Every structure is written in C-alpha cells, then in structure tokens.
C-alpha cells in the first residue's frame, strides 16, 4: 500500500492526478543528486541537507560535478534550441542506472516530462530521455515511496505551513508527499493557508517580465502564510522560496521559508534505518 494512503485528504486540489499512479523501484544503494542551479547559488544548504537525508537512509549519493541547470529558464522563455543543448549536457551526466533525486518539483518536472518535447526529433536521444524520465524522482516522493522512510519528530512541537510548488502539484504529482512526510511527525501541526493551491507568482522570468502581477501574487501568498498562524514555512522548491522569502524580507517580516529537506534533517530522526543524525 502506498504510504500516501495515510495522507490527509487534499482539500485544495481541483483535479485528480494527471497520470496513473507511478510504480516505484526498491530502495537502491546509490542515487544521483541533481542539485538545481537555484539551490547551487542561493540555497546550497538545502542541497546538502537533501544529500544528508539520503545518506541517513543508507544511500550513497553521487553528485556529478559537471552538472549545471536543467534548461528550464530558456525553455519556458521560448529559447528552445538553447534549452536543448543545456539539457543534452545533463542527459550525458546522469546516464547510469541509478535514480536521479531532485530537491525541486520544477526541475524534476523538466527532466521527467519536458525533455521528451525538447528531443522529439531525435529518436536515439529519446531513449536516453525515457530512461532519465523513468529514474527521476522529487526528493519527498523518493523518501516516501522508494526509501519508505519513517521519521520521528525531535525537539519542540511546531505549527508549520507547507507551500507546494505548482510543478510538484501538477507536473510531478507529488503534492501529497510533503504532507505525508510531515504527517509522520507527532510534533508537527501542519496548518492550511488561504488559497493554498495557488501559485506564489514566481514563474521564473515571469517575475521580472510581469513584476506587478507577480508582485501581487507573492504579496497574497505571504499574507496567506502569515495569516495561517504558522511559526515556520517549508517548501520543497527553492524557486518559490526565493520569491516568498524575498517578499517577507522586503516587508520587514522575520518569517522565512526553508526547504523541506532542511526542516526534516533538523527536526527528525529516522526510524526506518534506526539511524541517528
């Protein structure tokens, strides 16, 4: 039975999963980590925490040093040829059999879905794309479905709000995984926030091309998060966090979102491996 069955019903999602439920492999000894360019520059700690969480489950993590960006910024801006070449470089780096774990729904969505579109005219490359797609997992999904983790909360009880990125929700279909992980923790009270399923307004270049609209969206999002009564905010996507935290800071608010991986590493022990931090 999927560990998701214990997840609370989703009150905000407006449509059911876009694809049939995914089947998951047994827990592997080795995985690749794709760190994403936003994490690389702005949230390297979240990337390291993802690595440590995986290691805590007894998994060897491989981080190909030649990795860069998944290609999404160019892809969504319409610069398809440029995106394809950057994607090609990543394809070559993750060519082994190991699963590729990505601490971001949006970059995972790129690997898992959009590379097919990028390489649709290259039949030989498409085989590599299909292999990569099948091996790509968002971190929360991987921990829950593949590692079958059982986490225990440590420290003081906390009320927190979870922001789920649109790509985790709609492309990776992993909007319930973060919830399910948090639901394992007795000391965590996850509170809903207003219009929880709505976009935070980041959208990559959208945030600078349409600053007023994007700004209105992120202001509503931060207000909703504050209004939820949560003391902490977590998200599994650093693009959203860049946006949300930047807005909190601009407003002089002390609240900051952190990556789910960081929260989990900080506030849990793993009962699945009997391991300690």
């Amino acid at each position, binding site marked *: 039975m999927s560990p998701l069955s214990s997840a609370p019903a989703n009150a905000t999602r*407006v*449509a*059911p*999963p*876009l694809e049939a439920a995914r089947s998951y492999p047994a827990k592997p000894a080795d995985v690749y*980590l794709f*760190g994403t*360019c936003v*994490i*690389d*520059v*702005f949230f*390297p*700690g979240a*990337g*390291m925490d993802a*690595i440590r969480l995986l290691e805590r489950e007894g998994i060897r*993590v*491989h*981080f*190909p*040093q*030649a990795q*860069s960006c998944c*290609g999404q*910024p*160019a892809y*969504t*801006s*319409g*610069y398809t040829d*440029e995106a394809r*070449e*950057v994607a*090609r*470089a990543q394809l070559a780096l993750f060519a082994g059999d190991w699963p590729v774990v990505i601490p971001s729904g949006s970059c995972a969505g790129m690997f898992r879905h959009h590379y097919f*579109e990028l390489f649709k005219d290259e039949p030989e490359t498409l085989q590599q794309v299909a292999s990569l797609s099948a091996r790509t997992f968002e971190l929360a999904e991987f921990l829950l479905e593949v590692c079958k983790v059982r986490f225990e909360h440590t420290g003081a009880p906390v009320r927190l709000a979870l922001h789920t990125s*649109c*790509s985790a929700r*709609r492309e990776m279909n992993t909007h319930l995984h973060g919830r399910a992980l948090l639901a394992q923790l007795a000391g965590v009270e996850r509170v809903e926030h207003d219009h929880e399923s*709505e*976009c935070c*307004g*980041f*959208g990559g270049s*959208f945030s*600078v*091309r*349409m*600053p*007023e*609209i994007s*700004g209105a*969206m992120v*202001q509503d999002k931060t207000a909703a998060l504050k209004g939820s009564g949560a003391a902490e905010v977590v998200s599994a996507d650093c693009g959203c966090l860049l*946006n949300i935290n*930047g*807005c909190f*800071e*601009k407003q002089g608010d002390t609240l900051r979102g952190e990556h789910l991986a960081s929260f989990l590493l900080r506030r849990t022990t793993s009962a699945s491996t009997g391991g300690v931090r």
Partner: protein
Amino acid sequence: MSHVADTPAQPIAFTRNAREALADAQLRRNFRGAMDALMDKRRNQFPDGDELERLRAFGNRVRARALSKLPDLLERLEANLVRNGVQVHWAETVEEANAIVHGIAERHAARKVIKGKSMVSEEMEMNHYLGARGVDCLESDMGEFIVQLRAEKPSHIIMPAIHLNAGQVAKLFHDKLAVEYTEDVDRLIQIGRETLRRNFFEADIGVSGVNFAIAETGTLLLVENEGNGRMSTTVPPVHIAVTGIEKVVENLRDVIPLLSLLTRSATGQPITTYVNMISGPRKADELDGPQEVHLVLLDNGRSQAFADGELRQTLNCIRCGACMNHCPVYTRIGGHAYGTVYPGPIGKIVTPHMLGLETTRDLPTASSMCGACGEVCPVKIPIPSLLRRLREEAVRAPAAEPHHVRGQGAKHSRKETLVWRAWRTLNTSPGLYRAAMYAGTRLRGLMPADIGPWTRYRSAPKPAARSLHELAREHLGEQ
C-alpha cells in the same frame, strides 16, 4: 481594430492595463470573490476525481476526433443544414462576417437586432459595425445588457459583467434606465427583463451564438440560463447564428459528454436551464419560429491554428471559462486588462491567431506557467505548453522558416538572443560554470540591493558564501 496582415499593429498595452487593474481594489475584490465562488461551484460538481479525469479524457478525444476531420464535418454540416432549410455562409475574416450579416439585414430592411449571447459576435464587433450602418443591436443576455449599457466589453466569456457588483449595477440602472435605486439582485434582474421584453417583439432579426454545431443532423445547439437565447432565436422573423468553424461536432452522441463538461466546468450547473436545438426555420404547419435561419461560419485565424498539430489543440475549446476562473493572473487583473475579446488563459492562446503576435506579444508572457488552467480545462488543452510554444514563435527570427504564426518574431531581439546563447555556453561548459559560481559566491557582497523589477516587491536574493558544487565536492569528493 485592423485584421489586415500587413498593417503595422500596435501592441495591446497589457502591462499598463494590468498595472491599473491591480491598483483598483474594488475590481480585485469583485474578481477574487466571484472566481472563488465559481471554483467552489465547479468543484462541487466533480466530487469524484477519477470520473472527472475519465470525462476529460473523453471530452478531449471527442474534440480531437472532430478536428481531425474538420473539413469533412464542415461540409456535412453545411449539407445537412441546407437540407433543413438553413442558409449557410462562410467568412474568412470578421469584415466578411459582418458584411454577410449586414447584407441579410439590408434585404429585410432591418432596423433592430436583438442578440443572445455570442462571443463570436464580440469578435466581429458586430454591434459597432451594424450600429454604424443604422441597425441597432440590443444585447438580451443580462450580463451583456449591463456591459452594453456601460459601453464596455465583456470581462469574462461566460459572465460578461462579473467585474461589477450589485451596487454598481444598481447605480447603472438607476442612471441609465431611470428606475429606483435597488441593490436587490432579483429586482435588478426583473428591471432588466422588463426593459428587454418588448424588444424581442420589435426586433427584425435575432442573433445568437452556437455552442455545438452538429454535422450529422444539421443542428445548432445553444445553452443558456435566462431564456433570452430561446426568445432571440424564435421570436424575430429572421435568426442569424454566428460561430467559429471549430464548433462543429460529429453527432448528437458527441454532444452529451461535452455538454456535461461544459455546464459543470463553467457555472457548476449539472445542466443549463435552457438547451436549445435549432434544426431549421418554421415549417409550413408550425405556429412559431423564424421564417429564415442563417448560419455564419467564421474562420478569423482559426485555420492558422488548425494547420499546426500542436497549436490545433487550441480549437478543442468549448468556451467554458474554467481556465480564467482558476487563473491567478486573471483573478487579479480581470478580463478588461487583456484588451482582447477572449481574456484569461484561453485568450492568450487563441487571440494570437486572430490578431497576430505583434498585437498580442505580451499575452503569452503573462503567465507564471502554474498550470491551473491546463489542470481544469475540460477538454484537456495543454494551455501552458501552448503558451510556451507561442513564446517560442514570438522570439524566433521573424524570417525563419517554417512560418507557423502570424507575427512570428514579434519579440525577437538580438540582444536577448545573445544573452541566452551565453547562458547556454555557461551551462554546457562545466569549467566555466564552476568558475562563474565561484566568482558569483565570492562576489556576493557586490550584489546590488536594487535589481530592477524583482526588488520592487522583494529584497534582492543573496548568493550563498559557497555553492552546492563546492560543498558537495568537499563532502563527497570529486565526482
């Protein structure tokens, strides 16, 4: 508005419109409240997610099949309509469509037209065209009637006056119709109906849209809630239906799932109050109905979308409006800011085919690609993918072949192209990337606090002291 290909087109002032709309607190409250209510209503209609998913897949297949044989279905539609006594007209442009309608009006010496709701007639700006030629058009749909009184355009394809609240309508009726001021919605509707009533009997022509044109039986199907559609299409002696060429479906069986998806997605109703099926003019032994029925089939850029396998999916649309109801951008700026007849996500993907990318250059960009539209679309149009595709068409070199969309290259810029080429080089050269990350993290102190549009609403992001590449290398070794 010009639809001629070689006239230099003025881009729609989308960003300015959006800025103004965002600053209008009343407008934002009206939209947020209305969209929240519509989302709830829709959700209540689809309690079973699996059923919804199957229905959407079915709806998608029905539409895709219809489009796959579009030319054939249109011919069959025409033949069967003609057999039923309906006169069929083809219009490539809105000018042609308007001229056809005006020609019919002239033949009947018509002075007065009563209209049921029709977005295609909005696309044609029919009221304006006929009005300038001495033929008055009166909107009979309550929302359309309200926006007509305000000399505005609809702000939503299903609920044209959704940008207004009851108080604003009360004031409008009080000012324009010289009636008492009341915010009682039922009373307001009553006032509107009383004003409209006699016009149905005075009108020389009734105009309507079409929801589904059924090829096999030559039937025009029309859904509505107010009864004005039925009045407009049965009381005046002449009925002219106007619609886009994509509205054809193969047979009545195909309509059933689409109808169910349409009304539940649009207004959260299991079925509308009225479902009109029009299969011809009054027959010799019948007591009522129009003596003449016409159908004008408008292209207006649809065949451009049709010609491309990917963009063709745009024509799946059954105009339910769910994509705008769920759109975080539309919810905040409302329909008028788009400056187009079709606002919201569907407007962003369909209008470039109607007006070209020069005019609509900002529309595909005005999306965070959150995907809410694609998630709710009852016929599974992959709206974000089509937005991305239109962005690609807008930044391609204007002369690059093949040419798929009018206005290709409207946003092409040498400078931006070079920036993305440099980005590609950086991200495909590991040594260079590493050096850049090293420099970026070491020079973080030099990051300016004001980085243009981003910092208007957020503080500037600060690079970390050391990149993940470095930290991972230290922890895991060189890999």
